[in-house]
């Protein structure tokens, strides 16, 4: 799977990412680190613990990483979750299934790179 295909499948922005990170080699190096990033796991755990502050920070970090890597779809959904949590509310159940689905899709396809 090429990087371009990968970004298309996961709803990302290959062109924008390339213009910021400059080389495919660099993009690939950081994209393949993504599965090891723990912010999604931390977000799920904090939500299970009803810890809104931790959940906010984890969602915020996930949003930041997704943004840097140009995973736009994942970035947008984590941004929505971040903003709900920032307000102190744990009512994110409407968004979490979609976020989880996008996260899994991304990680699965990284394995094919």
């Amino acid at each position, binding site marked *: 799977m090429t990087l371009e295909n990968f970004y298309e499948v996961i709803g990302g922005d290959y062109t924008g990412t390339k213009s910021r990170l400059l080389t495919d080699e660099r993009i690939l190096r950081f994209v393949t680190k993504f599965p090891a*990033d723990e912010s999604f796991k931390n977000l799920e755990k904090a939500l299970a613990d009803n810890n809104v502050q931790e959940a906010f920070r984890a969602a915020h970090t996930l949003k*930041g990483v997704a943004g840097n890597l140009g995973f736009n779809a994942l970035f947008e959904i984590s941004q929505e979750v971040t903003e709900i949590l920032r307000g102190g509310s744990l009512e994110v159940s409407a968004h979490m299934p979609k976020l989880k689905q996008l996260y899994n899709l991304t990680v699965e396809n990284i394995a094919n790179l």
Partner: protein
Amino acid sequence: MTDNRKPPRQKILIVDDSEINRSILADMLGDEFEIIEASNGLEAVELINLYGRKLSLVLLDIIMPQMDGFEVLARMNERKWIQDIPVIIISSENTSQFIERAYELGATDYIQRPFDTNVVRRRSLNTIMLYGKQKELKGLIEDRVYRREHEQSLMINALSHILEFRNGESGNHITNVRKISEMLLNTLAKNNEKYKLPQSEISLIALASALHDVGKLAVDKDILNKPQKLTAKEQEAVRAHALRGAEIIKQLPYASDEPLIKHAYEICRWHHEHWDGSGYPDGLEGDKIPVSAQVVGLADAYDTLTNKRVYKEAVPHSKAVEMILNGECGVFNPDLIEAFKSVAGTLQTNLRLSSLEDL
């Protein structure tokens, strides 16, 4: 073979709770920097404490566990690190309130996510360069100011010595009067609301004090150097030095508005006035005598007492202090007497030290 000539790489501290973000930034900055990483604010503060000014730049995320970026900035302010170590905030937060707060806490720049290689590189390099330049300039200016002051001080000492030679005064009279005046003014300013002079004003008065006896140039040298008791007429001629000095200063063809010249005028004219109005040339009393002239008057009295003149022997320090406190050298402002009491203990040591400094 290792290359030892290369200068050590500049250090950049990257603070971000995400490992991916840190490594993207490190990669963007390239090999020319030594990258140090922290994953939260607490670690960052520890590392800043450890490396101090050896850090050329901090790239700082805001939302982090343990301690956030604002708190890191606050600590850097508390310990004054922020003056020497530039901080660039890197965050996806983009409300103006958020950005404003970061700037208020002393951040130099703000880079928004997602990271762009060129933006991160350029801004980091620019910030490092500006801070480096500033440090270099600060060093240059400090050197210059120091050299200027040193040369100025040498010149004043040389001119003072010429004046002392002509006036038959011993050794360090002018530099002593300057030092004593400065000590008295510092003490007055510290202990008494009424005399809250800024440091710059104190230095200026101390500097102007060097001219206090310039009017003696207009007094016959034979009278100044006469060992015997002066006749009434001769005494009058000596006393004229106060007004003559003031005239000389006033006739300076330039700079009459300068505070230094204004102080010199007051000092020349009124350093022999007394608090009770019994002094000369104008018989001013109390607060009508400018504080500059009061202070120099006391400093002059002490130094004249403790040094030999052709017409008198030197009096020991303790005796001189006693005479001044007893009013044997005229009545001084009680606030000034208080200040004199508190500097008397360290006066001799300080005068010895300052004469060594000027060598």
